[in-house]
């Protein structure tokens, strides 16, 4: 099925299927992941084909899901757990932060914690509260965790393979409003390294750095800017821990301008870290301060307001203009 066109959700599904197929130690766990195939159907059909020993419907207990996954990993399994929605990861946050992230160090490297925590995240689907959040910075801040987010079907497929193969715990943020976006997936390709950024569009006047759901918005912004004669490069970061600062630096040394875009609140977010590091690394190259576009420091608003909250084309283009005006 090399070079197949499929949605992000389908790509994840195929990727999980391949992992279950090739490694008997891989397990899928979570609420409704079995017969239903997950509320987003990412695990669709896996229960039927691999059985309830491999694709496990769990009690409704997030701490229990991650905590038992840790125990299974200690026994030699590679659990891939699904947290149903971003806002429900917090009961498990304790297990993730105090246990999953630290156990490898505490054992001086003698044990491995190959647990993947899948979290459908972000807004734009008109959901009720706790179903639209972007808590990635809270996880990226914790040493011992790796945090990634694909923006397209090919990356979804390959990054999931790599996350499962990683001996480290990986928090895998899935951009839920892009689940149905389709793209080409070459399942025979040689994958891009998991924590390396990708240039999604070449440009020379300014760099837009984004990940997950915002990559598409940035590509649209770059296309719109091109009509006005501005050449905008779009960098898909793909990994929030570690962040591939080298690729950001390379791009900024070329374009001399950087705008970071994410859905999460700007305050103390991923963009803040990138702005600080790039200012340090590229001080003499920069023609403008690094700008950030993102969410506000408020609870994620009710659905009728989310278009105002989420960075859209106009806010991104406005930041592009502000940067170019320096």
């Amino acid at each position, binding site marked *: 099925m090399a070079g197949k066109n499929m949605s992000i959700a389908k790509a994840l599904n195929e990727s999980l299927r391949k992992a279950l197929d090739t490694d008997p130690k891989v397990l899928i766990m979570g609420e409704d992941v079995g017969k239903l195939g997950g509320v987003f159907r990412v695990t669709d059909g896996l229960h039927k084909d691999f059985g309830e020993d491999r694709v496990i419907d769990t*009690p409704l207990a997030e701490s*229990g899901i991650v*905590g*038992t996954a840790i*125990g299974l990993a*200690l026994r030699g399994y590679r659990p891939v757990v699904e947290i149903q929605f971003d806002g429900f990861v917090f009961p498990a946050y304790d*297990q993730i932060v105090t246990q999953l992230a630290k156990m490898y160090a*505490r054992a001086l490297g003698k044990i491995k914690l190959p647990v993947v925590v899948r979290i459908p995240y972000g807004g734009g689907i008109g959901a009720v509260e706790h179903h639209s959040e972007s808590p990635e910075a809270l996880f990226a801040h914790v040493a011992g965790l790796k945090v990634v987010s694909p923006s397209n079907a090919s990356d979804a497929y390959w990054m999931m393979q790599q996350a499962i193969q*990683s001996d480290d715990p990986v928090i895998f943020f899935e951009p839920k409003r892009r689940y149905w976006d389709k793209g080409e997936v070459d399942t025979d390709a040689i994958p891009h390294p998991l924590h390396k950024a990708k240039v999604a569009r070449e440009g020379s006047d300014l760099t837009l750095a984004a990940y997950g759901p915002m990559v598409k918005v940035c590509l649209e912004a770059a296309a719109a800017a091109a009509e006005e004669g501005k050449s905008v490069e779009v960098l898909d970061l793909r990994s929030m821990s570690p962040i591939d600062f080298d690729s950001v630096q390379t791009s900024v040394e070329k374009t001399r301008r950087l705008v970071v875009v994410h859905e999460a609140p700007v305050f103390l977010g991923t963009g803040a870290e990138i702005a600080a590091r790039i200012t340090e690394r590229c001080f003499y190259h920069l023609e403008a301060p690094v700008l950030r576009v993102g969410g506000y420091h408020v609870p994620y608003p009710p659905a009728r307001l989310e278009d105002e909250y989420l960075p859209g084309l106009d806010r991104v283009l406005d930041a592009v203009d502000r940067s170019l005006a320096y």
Partner: protein
Amino acid sequence: MTVESTAATRKPRRSSKRAGAARTPKAPDEPQLVQLLTPEGERVEHPEYEVDLTPEELRGLYRDMVLTRRFDAEATSLQRQGELGLWASLLGQEAAQIGSGRALRDDDYVFPTYREHGVAWCRGVDPTNLLGMFRGVNHGGWDPNSNNFHLYTIVIGSQTLHATGYAMGIVKDGADSAVVAYFGDGASSQGDVAEAFTFSAVYNAPVVFFCQNNQWAISEPTEKQMRVPLYQRAQGFGFPGVRVDGNDVLACLAVTKSALERARRGEGPTLVEAYTYRMGAHTTSDDPTKYRTDDERQAWEAKDPIQRLKTYLEKQKFADEAFFTGLETESETLGKRVREAVRAMPDPDSLAMFENTHADGHALVDEERAQFAAYQASFADSDEEGN
């Protein structure tokens, strides 16, 4: 002595037998519990639990308890001497730990809290390994797989879920080993423990929840944690709970063995509440005189787990004077070895903090390690210039 087992799976024969037994209302400080050796050192029978040990095996249990107590005392004094930053003493809980620890098979797995020094002893973990984290040279520091004894867990209750997950893995592997999760009465209030009960029941996981009810969670008495006796809680989750005299090493051994066998037979989890007492402070930072009375402690001292076995060994003539003096010498040797090992424990190299953060490496950690190393090297240079 009635067994207060809340067994969903128990045979009716037994429960009818128990139902017929006269029940005396229980005094708050005298719970009904499984006992095989009274505080006076008398061997008693129990209708459901039995141990049949040779004099040598009994001396072995005694030796385990004495050496564990000696190790614990040494660690406490090492803390007083500034060699350890903190110590969590197990004083008074030796029977609960040695009894349950000696019930284990080599291929069983243990998930402890931070006080299971006696269980560690039974697992063959070198006691000096336990001191690294209290001295501050690491956060655990041993390979859990070398003795099937997981790292100490400080966040109370967390490890009950790890134990359950591990036990779920045993089922998947088709193995017949079992897991013991240790936790305290205070920890029983944590959500993770309830989630562990749920998961273990639902997946029929071979895990024994071994709660040492030592009456206190730092300064909070059990009445601040629960309104029904702890062991009864298991019933609501669909597995048996049993309360055992935690100061009776024989009863702890028998009850844990039986729970482990049940787990091995594929009958799922058991909650064992070892009713005991923490005779020392919660940790060396704690001051128990602020919240409990001398009377209470003295009442429990009369039930000392080591003394009662000693009385029994002496009465039965299972151990002679030479055994006891030999053990004293062995204790002193252990104390000395521990003291010397701790004093010789080097501080970790400062770059060690960057090690083992990730199995597959991490660019930021690599970058910061290099920066830190360069920063340190800059001092080495200036030292040289100064010389």
